[in-house]
Every structure is written in C-alpha cells, then in structure tokens.
C-alpha cells in the first residue's frame, strides 16, 4: 500500500495514542471507558494491518464484547457522585514537564530503538515444518492446541479460576438502579442470539484451516450470552448450589486435562497426541475450549456468585 499505507498507520497510531491517553487520563470515568472501548476497536484494525487476523478476531470479540460489557457494567457501581472525580484529575504542572515528559520520551525512544534492532529470527520455518504432524492446517491453531497446548490448558484454567475467584467474592451485586424497560430489548436478544451461535460455530469450524478457532468463537458466544442476560433472558442459575452449572463451567478444563493425561498414559509425553488421532483430538479440544471460554466469560460477567435474590431484578427488563 506504500505511502498511503504509512499515512494510514500514522493516523491509526495517533488515534490509538490519543485514545489511550483519554482512557487513562480523562476527567470523567465514562469518557475513559468509552475511549478504552474504541481503543480496542482500533487495536483490532492495527492487528489487521500487522497481518494477525487471529488476534484481530479475538480482539474484536473480546475487546468489543466481553471487556466492554464488563467495564460498562462496572461503571454502574463505580459511577461517582456529582462533584467528585468529575473535576479534572490531572493538570500538567511544571514538574510534569521537567520530570515526566523527558523521562517518558527517553524511555519510549530507548524501547523503540531497542526493539527496532531486534533481528527477529522467528520460529515460522520450524512451525511450518512441524505443521504436517500437528493434525491441523492453520499454524496458529497448531501452536495453540498442539505445540503449546499446555499454555492453552493453563489459560482456560486461569479463566476457571477467575470465575471461581469472582464468585467467591459474594453474591452478584444487583444493578443499583432499575433497568430501563423497553420492548425492543427482548426482541433484539431473541433475534440475535441464534446469529451469535451460528457465527460462533462458523468460526470454530474455520479454525482448523484458517484464522478463527476456539478463542473468537468462545468470545462471540459468551458475548451472545451476555446480550441475552441484558435483554432480560431467564436467569440461568437459580438454586443455591447452582445445579449442574459448576460442572458445566469446569467441563472444558477437565476435558483438556484429561486429554493431556491420556496422552501421557498412551506412552508419550504429557499432552502428546498419537499421530493418528491428532486432528480428531484437536477438534474435540477446540470445541471444548470454545464452549468453556464462552461459558466462563459469561460466568465472569455475572460479577459475583449468582444468587436467587440477586437475580430477581434482572428479570424485570
């Protein structure tokens, strides 16, 4: 794209820097959060420019979906009373210009220079060479679910753990003010949810041979769940023990752990798939990973232990 490409990149960089600045510095919290959401949006464009479509998909789904929803919902609790932090929080004073700005410029410059010098040999050739035995055609999926599957297992573990930790902090806080009733909202939820499921399934299917796979699929499905919740769907967990939901939430992690151990029992290493069934094993893992990412994002979004009492006002919308 030549010169135009560079102009594009420069504009993107300016916008991103400005948004990051707003996100960390804006006088009001809502502006900060919206800036951060738009920041995520434009980061996805940056990933596209950097030829990382997988990350762009995940960022689009997670950044625009789960993180945005989480932050906006948190604002509901955190919104300051009038006259509090709506005053300007930070003013550039003399100390800033003398101390911070030069230090910051020097640090940023040094980092850029250091990173620019990196030879970046990369493992592309090695990964491509091993791709044939991995059971999938798409290199990123092969890395995630075969070469470095342990990372993915632990990452799902972190999500399970986050859900447990969030739930352990007590019952989910009810929305502090009534939700605006609107007839369009349930309709929107009902209409869109099948599309969410469809798109998630499509992304999952693509994962074995093209950008896509468990991560964006899970995030899209999780976002669909959150939308349903906001649109006033039936609360999903009613009983004190949460019925089978605890089992369902941890199922993905359990299946992956099981696969890893089976690999070891079959005579190989931890997480070693026998070559004959590698592609099937990865397919199963991908589906479970996607499902559990979706469920866990949703569980984490509840911001606390789902509780019968806390659910009552969700039904109202």
């Amino acid at each position, binding site marked *: 794209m030549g010169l135009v490409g560079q102009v594009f990149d420069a504009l993107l960089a300016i916008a991103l820097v400005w948004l990051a600045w707003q996100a960390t510095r804006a006088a009001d919290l809502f502006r900060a959060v919206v800036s951060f959401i738009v920041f995520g949006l434009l980061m996805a464009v940056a990933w596209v420019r950097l030829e990382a479509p997988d990350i762009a998909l995940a960022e689009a789904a997670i950044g625009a979906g789960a993180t945005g929803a989480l932050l906006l919902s948190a604002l509901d609790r955190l919104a300051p009373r009038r006259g509090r932090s709506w005053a300007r929080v930070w003013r550039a004073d003399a100390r800033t210009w003398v101390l911070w700005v030069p230090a910051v410029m020097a640090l940023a410059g040094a980092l850029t220079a250091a990173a620019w010098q990196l030879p970046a040999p990369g493992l592309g050739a090695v990964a491509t060479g091993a791709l044939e035995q991995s059971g999938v055609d798409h290199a990123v999926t092969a890395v995630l679910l075969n070469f470095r599957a342990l990372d993915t297992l632990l990452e799902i573990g972190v999500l399970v753990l986050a859900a447990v930790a969030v739930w352990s902090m007590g019952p989910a806080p009810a929305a502090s003010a009534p939700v*605006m009733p*609107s007839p*369009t*909202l349930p*309709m*929107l939820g009902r*209409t*869109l949810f099948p*599309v969410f499921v469809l798109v998630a399934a499509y992304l999952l299917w693509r994962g074995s041979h093209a950008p896509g796979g468990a991560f964006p699929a899970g995030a899209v499905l999780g976002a669909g769940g959150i939308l349903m919740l906001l649109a006033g769907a039936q609360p999903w967990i009613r009983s004190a023990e949460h019925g089978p939901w605890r089992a369902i939430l941890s199922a993905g992690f359990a299946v992956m752990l099981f696969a890893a151990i089976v690999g070891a029992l079959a005579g190989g290493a931890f997480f070693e798939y026998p070559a004959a069934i590698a592609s099937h094993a990865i397919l199963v893992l991908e589906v479970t990973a996607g499902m559990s990412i979706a469920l866990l994002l949703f569980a984490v979004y509840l911001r606390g232990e789902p509780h019968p009492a806390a659910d009552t006002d969700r039904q109202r919308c």
Partner: protein
Amino acid sequence: MSWTELVGGLLVIAGMPFFILGTLGLLRFPDVYTRLHALSKADNVGLGLVCVGLGIQSGSPAMMLKLLLIWVLMLVASATGAGLIARTALARGIRPWSP
C-alpha cells in the same frame, strides 16, 4: 478491469460521502436526538453501498451473503441502539433541542 469490478468500486466510492456526512452530523448537530440520525441513517446507507459494492466485486455468493449479514446486523444494531438511546435519554429528562 471487468464491469463487476467497476460497478462494485463505484458503489464503494459512492458510499464514502455518507460517512463524511455522518461524522459531520455527529459533530455539528445540536443534541443527542438529532445526532442519532447521523448514526442510524447516514452511516448505514454508506455501509450498505460498500457491502453491495464489495459483494458485486467479489462475485462469490458466500461472500455476498456474509456482507449482507454484516449490513443487516448493523441495521438491527443501530436501529435498536438508536431507539434505546432516544428512549432512555427522554426518560432521563434530556430535552430535545428546539431552535
């Protein structure tokens, strides 16, 4: 250059002014209700033109379907979004602008 590519390209280019108009509206309209027009109308016409143009250009039915889906989803999102925002704004007591 084949004619599909030409027509598609022209449609895409035709979509651009709507985005500029949308941003103009976003910046210049006096209150949130008027600005909603910029969101729900101008940008979606622009998006529609781009999607149709690119669909024609690609020539593959699957791609056309996907682009169509994108457009429809955006229409749904912005229609309901605009409705919800207007409704809530009114309930919150933000008065519509009057000259």
